[in-house]
């Protein structure tokens, strides 16, 4: 059983007799601007200044509801592991902002991902 399957797998590695030509052309793209808006709450400027250079605000805003200590440890990881140059005196303000943004989330309407295609 096992052997037969391995054989099939190898046969599917469709090997060409003579390598077809491959040509490589330069590639370039322009990424869209970031539409995620940070809610207008106290501390927003500190979040923009310290937290939006390496990733979009959605990285913060899409996290599940987490307590203060967890936010503090995430910011610690940003500083220690990812070497984010975070103004340490701004951390309490940033955490207050993230907790307030979490609490201010609007209720969500539902539109299932697997919607019928038509």
């Amino acid at each position: 059983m096992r052997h037969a399957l391995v054989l099939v797998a190898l046969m599917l590695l469709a090997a060409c007799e003579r390598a077809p030509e491959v040509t490589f052309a330069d590639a370039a793209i322009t990424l869209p601007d970031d539409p995620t808006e940070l809610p207008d709450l106290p501390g927003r400027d500190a979040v923009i200044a310290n937290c939006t250079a390496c990733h979009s605000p959605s990285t913060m805003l899409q996290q599940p509801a987490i307590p203060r200590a967890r936010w503090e440890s995430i910011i610690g990881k940003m500083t220690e592991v990812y070497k984010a140059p975070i103004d340490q005196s701004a951390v309490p303000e940033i955490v207050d902002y993230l907790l307030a943004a979490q609490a201010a989330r609007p209720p969500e309407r539902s539109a299932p991902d697997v919607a019928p295609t038509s």
Partner: protein
Amino acid sequence: MSGVRLTRRALIAGAGTTALAAPGLAQSLVGQLVDLGLPDGPSLRPTTPAFPGKGEMIVQRVNAPVLETPMSVFREGLITPNDRFFVRWNWPMPTAVKAGAHRVAVGGAVRQAVSLTLDEIAAAGEHVSIVAINQCAGNGRGLSEPRVTGTQWGNGAMGCAKWTGVRLRDVLAKAGIAAGATRVRFAGLDVPLVDGAPQFIKSIPLDIAMRDDVLVAWGMNDEPLPILHGFPLRIVVPGWFSTYWVKMLSTIEVLTGEDDSYYVAKSYRVPAAPVTPEDKDFPTIPITAMPPRAFITSHADGAVVAKGQPLTLEGIAFGGDCALERVDLVGEGWEMPCTLGPDEHGPYAFRRWSVTLPPLAGDLSQIGVRARNVQGAVQPDRLAWNPSGYARNVIERITLRAQ
């Protein structure tokens, strides 16, 4: 390594541009909202066709790009089109690559370090194609209960494509593997712009690197790799999670010991034995091979179906690091076998399944499909919870209302 360094001021300047640009662009970028079904939210995500070369994608993040495939795409075919394939970058990515100037350095424990052009890579050996699923280690993380932090994916961080390239071992042969080699490590052009931050580099054991089907690939579904998917070259490790499929490949390094780099030694790891959310300081192992999974694609949770009528359910499944053996529909205290579609693309690809239920007497509550692979791995009834939300393969359950 890139010579660019980001100072605190440069970081702030970059951020300012983003913030100022945001309000006016929000409307133009956002298509519709989809609900990923993440417990207690936030679960709604915008979709957009605004990324170059991409169709309608779920936006997890614009920078660095993280895009999810809507589940409806998996109903349309077993091969995920390039323009609907999920995208995931850990650090901001280069947006331009000059093919003529690109080199792949092969070094470390080799007989003769070499720097190869793209043409030299293409000439390194026989050209091979394999259809294989590329799935993020964190696919489905957002569905974890209790919730965990990280990219809050639904189940759309996976796709199945035909990858074309040369065998990694043929590329390694250009340099010659030296005695004592243990692992092969890959790095791409995506380097962090802050000093001292860990680069996204990953390694695989030598025996995996020498496999017949582990590739240095330039083709994705018979097209050049799109830049969002790692142009000009990416590593392909069929059956293993996407984290090893390093994109924009620029360095191959043969190691003689363990890999102590961050993304192998510290991150992308799972508990060695089951843990609870209260557990701390347990041993971990790197996440590697994929377990089996199956999905219902014909019906969404909460969909209404006809009472008194037979019902046909359909979907996709895969075996993980070996072929799929069977799929069963499971309910609360009952199960029935599903019929597998033909094996169209080999052991590492999606495969169809379907099942027809007798006329429905009432709601179908908490039904799901359970895949089993030829090595006997079966999807579990309960989530193997882990703090990073990796390797989710619990049976996904939905409820259908009969009316």
